[in-house]
């Protein structure tokens, strides 16, 4: 059986037979990889740390007919700061769940991997969860070719001068005139400016953006709607995040 190595971030793990887990990684070399890890939960297992979400590891794998098998792993970076805050934990989980849901095995994207790792590092360093999540989702949507149109009206392609509205089916923001023919939710100037900013600023420098919390929430809400409509994803971690907000 062919073997291979990859550098990957653990997204999630689910119980399999006995002490086995099926672990989903996002790797730099191969994109999403799902592999079976054995002996998890037994004391002294050398793979136990690797199956924990958000761990960055060097992975040694054997190709299998259905699922690959993780034989060895070397921990490169762990983020104990993430479970120390429930909000950070929630947004990191959201990012992991989104990555797993939006990608297919065997399609590598080193750019997405780098953005993912930078986002997890930014969360661990205390950057705002909603901002990191929105910026990451925008980057992912862009790489998948379904980014929301933000610079101009998605219908008439005129520059957006006046009020703007978001309409998922149109693919982004639309102007007041085009909105007359259908629905769409109003998006404030602050949130629009923020969405532009999120596309340009790397995750580790989000702190530099001047953001009001309600603008961050508005921007993230728009990104969520876009994800839901264009990728058809329902993320379980959203319910968790809802419980946290008062």
């Amino acid at each position: 059986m062919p073997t291979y190595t990859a550098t990957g971030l653990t997204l999630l793990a689910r119980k399999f037979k006995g002490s086995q887990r099926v672990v989903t990684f996002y790797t730099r070399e191969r994109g999403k990889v799902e592999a079976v890890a054995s002996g998890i939960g037994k004391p002294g297992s050398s793979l136990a740390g690797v199956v924990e979400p958000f761990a960055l590891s060097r992975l040694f794998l054997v190709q299998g007919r259905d699922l690959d098998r993780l034989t060895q792993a070397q921990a490169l970076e762990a983020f104990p700061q993430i479970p120390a805050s429930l909000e950070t934990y929630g947004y990191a989980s959201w990012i992991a769940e989104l990555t797993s849901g939006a990608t297919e095995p065997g399609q590598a994207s080193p750019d997405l991997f780098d953005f993912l790792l930078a986002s997890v590092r930014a969360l661990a360093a205390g950057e705002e969860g909603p901002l990191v999540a929105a910026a990451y989702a925008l980057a992912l949507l862009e790489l998948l070719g379904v980014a929301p149109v933000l610079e101009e009206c998605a219908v008439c392609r005129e520059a957006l001068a006046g009020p703007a509205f978001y309409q998922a089916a149109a693919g982004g923001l639309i102007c007041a005139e085009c909105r007359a023919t259908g629905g769409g939710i109003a998006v404030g100037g602050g949130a629009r400016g923020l969405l532009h900013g999120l596309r340009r600023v790397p995750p580790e420098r989000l702190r530099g953006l001047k953001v009001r919390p309600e603008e961050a929430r508005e921007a993230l809400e728009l990104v969520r709607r876009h994800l839901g409509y264009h990728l058809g994803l329902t993320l379980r971690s959203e319910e968790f995040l809802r419980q946290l907000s008062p």
Partner: protein
Amino acid sequence: MLRYPAPLERVIEEFERLPGIGPKSAQRLAFFLLSRPRDQAQALGETVLLLHEGIQPCAECGNYAAARLCPVCADDTRDKLVLCVVETATDLMALERAGEYRGLYHVLGGALSPLAGVGPAELRIGELLERVQRYGTEEVILATSPTVEGDATAEFLRQRLSATAPQVKISRIALGLPVGADMDYADQVTLARALRGRTPM
């Protein structure tokens, strides 16, 4: 493909749903029961039926109980001022087997997990805070598992406890190297935790 008679198929199917039982083991178990006298299958069936009728969560700690209180809560010799918080009743049993602990427990019913849809509202956290007040608890030991989920849960409980009961001493069960472990083989994450959780001697 040859199919077994319906009653046999059904038993095999039911066994297959049990954790750790594959199709082969399920068949073996079903054939075993069939080969034994009828009373043995009857005894098994009746015991399984009584499981849910006879067992309920302990009104205090959430452990499995055959009465209103579980054996731990009903035991007058236990130290009522120390509370050990665990994820599941199975974890509680494991700690009891160690025979070291003489305080009471609190079973949360799981750990915080955004991906499994388990938030604070799904765990018995309100009950914990209420018990700490009512008992005048002096120490709470957080014995959730050494995983991201267990750590997040412990950290959340620490914050809630220090806000609602600041006088309570809060500790986390020591995490680190397993007994008999070879340092060489321990992964970096475990070693880092063992160093962080070191104790003075």
